């Protein structure tokens, strides 16, 4: 009986397959890697290239139909004043959000990495992660209420008899407006709030890897705290800052919900893509706009690499 089961066991199709794979390890690797490679190649990159290809077509001025011939005219349209405004506006906002997020995140992450222990570490993680668990839309809507003309923040300024300060601030052109919720400042604050965890966590991870002994050695050798920070801590933590900035920068570049709910209705790249691909049917221009963040991120990563930000990786 046992002889029979052993016999059938060695000759079943699965067993033969397993034997064959054992003898041909390359085939095993090929079989295992093909599905994810296809996923990456066709679905992920394929759709991206299909989009890029669209940007080399153009829309016919008179009929509004897409002309399927190679042209760079659509890219030229990106430089009309109205469209170029959108690009500059988005990049400036993304840069401002990234810098502010790095400045705020660093001390928080430093405290969490160096001083928070046990229970407080858990509180830190919870505090940073908790906003990520709730819906993005809920957060943006609640910020709209906070910043509104008749909202909490305004009320607070009134209670503190500081309303003149807010009004003076809102009177500043460009960053001001009728109220915080319809100004650039409002859009900036919401972006900053929503993307902050993506900056805090990578910085914290990189700070944890900086050995305490290095900072002690720096102090022993006569560096004041400022010098230790500048020449020891910051260079060692820079990969984390860069990683975080890639998140905050690219997320701000692509977002189209926040500027629609909070801000002065002036378009960002994401919104422009959204409206051009809709009823307008101007897919080529939408695609050309979509290429802009890709190019900007490419340049950004290239500069970061030149600066040695990835050396420690």
């Amino acid at each position, binding site marked *: 009986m046992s002889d029979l089961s052993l016999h059938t066991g060695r000759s079943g199709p699965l067993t033969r397959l397993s034997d064959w794979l054992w003898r041909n390890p390359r085939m095993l690797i090929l079989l295992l890697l093909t599905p994810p490679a296809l996923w990456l190649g066709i679905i992920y990159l394929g759709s991206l290239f299909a989009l890029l290809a669209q940007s080399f077509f153009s829309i016919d001025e008179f009929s509004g139909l897409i002309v399927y011939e190679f042209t760079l005219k659509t890219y030229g349209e990106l430089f009309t004043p*109205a469209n170029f405004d959108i690009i500059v506006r988005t990049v400036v906002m993304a840069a401002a959000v990234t810098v502010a997020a790095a400045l705020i995140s660093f001390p928080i992450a430093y405290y969490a990495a160096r001083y928070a222990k046990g229970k407080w570490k858990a509180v830190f993680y919870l505090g940073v992660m908790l906003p990520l668990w709730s819906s993005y839309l809920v957060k943006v809507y609640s910020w709209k209420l906070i910043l509104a003309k*008749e909202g909490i923040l305004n009320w607070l300024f009134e209670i503190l008899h500081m309303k003149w300060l807010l009004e003076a601030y809102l009177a500043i052109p460009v960053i001001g407006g009728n109220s915080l919720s319809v100004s650039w400042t409002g859009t900036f604050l919401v972006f900053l709030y929503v993307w902050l965890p993506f900056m805090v966590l990578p910085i914290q991870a990189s700070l944890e890897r900086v050995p305490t002994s290095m900072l002690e050695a720096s102090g022993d050798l006569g560096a004041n705290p400022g010098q230790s920070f500048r020449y020891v801590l910051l260079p060692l933590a820079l990969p984390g800052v860069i990683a975080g900035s890639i998140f905050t920068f690219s997320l701000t570049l692509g977002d189209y919900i926040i500027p629609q709910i909070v801000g002065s209705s002036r378009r960002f790249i994401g919104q422009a893509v959204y*409206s051009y691909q*809709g*009823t307008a049917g101007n897919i080529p221009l939408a695609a050309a706009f979509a290429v802009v963040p890709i190019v900007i991120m490419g340049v950004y990563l290239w500069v970061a690499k030149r600066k040695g930000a990835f050396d420690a990786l």
Partner: protein
Amino acid sequence: MTSFLKSCTALVATAVVASQSLAADMITEIGPGEGQVNIVAWPGYIERGETVADFDWVTKFEQATSCKVNVKTANTSDEMVALMNEGGFDLVTASGDASLRMIAGKRVQPVNIDLIPSWPSVDERLKEAPWHYVGGVHYGTPYMWGPNVLMYSTEAFAEAPTSWSVVFEETTLADGKSNQGRVQAYDGPIHIADAANYLMYHKPELGITSPYELNQEQYDAALDLLRVQRGLVSRYWHDAFIQIDDFKNEGIVASGSWPFQVNLLQGDGAKVASTIPQEGATGWADTTMMHAEAENPNCAYMWMEHTLSSNLQSDLSVWFGANPAVPAACTDGRGMQTAEGCTKNGMDEFERIKFWQTPVSKCESQGTCVPYYRWVSDYIGVIGGR
């Protein structure tokens, strides 16, 4: 000359064949239900009592016909067209901009109105409306319509504003303060039509005959007006609920709006009212249309009949702040709507409303017009301060 005659003959022949195939597509009698019907609809258009128990116009239909109603909601006309292109649906509640595109793209089929017993009850003004009646063929049954009204705060205005100028030009309002920063406009390129509608009344020398058919000069005048408006508007509205919030918390006192927001705000006790000023207004009108390859045509016809005959028209007009396509629904007590409610929603203003259409380059009134894709890019420019 002979070749010309030949091509004429060919054209006539094609036309005859085409019209025959159209007629052949149409169903001539309704068979037994297929068990389900799949509908693409605007949010809030097809309610089965799950949002608010009183608003239910599906359950009875399902019980009576054993056709299960499956709804897929779509938030924009583009989404509706895309879903219909994908297929797998029987019906769609299409607005004027989507309906003509779908007819031109052959995504919808002609509807045999003889199979819809309640057809005679449909509003005479809608029976042959150009957004679903093309070339003598019906492509659907009217569903709902409504105006884009001027909503205003009764605290800032002692009496209803008589002109759209309160949202287009800087003026001092009844409360003694400027309207700067206190008015809103719709965040969609179609708002250019509202500006054109305003100019149609105030600058007759431009010769605008339809706000959706503008030549370059008329179009530029409309954009100039909108640039003035940009100086008054802090934020454009996109989402009905955000506008409601802005009237409550942002100190907004006047804006183009839908009766939907007016009703919700009034229901909430806010001091607002709405009016259709002297210039008239733009508006929307939706049609139930049937997919060219509908898999459940019998249930689809039964649903179309249901939309016209049941409590749907009446209750939906209350729910959505819109006007029924069947005027009797306002008065005959089939649902909650009353004659006063219909008047409030703008039922009597039909003649003063220019219904939403997609601007195309080949237009009826003057040959060449500015097409919609340019409306999109230029409106983005105007909002951006260009």
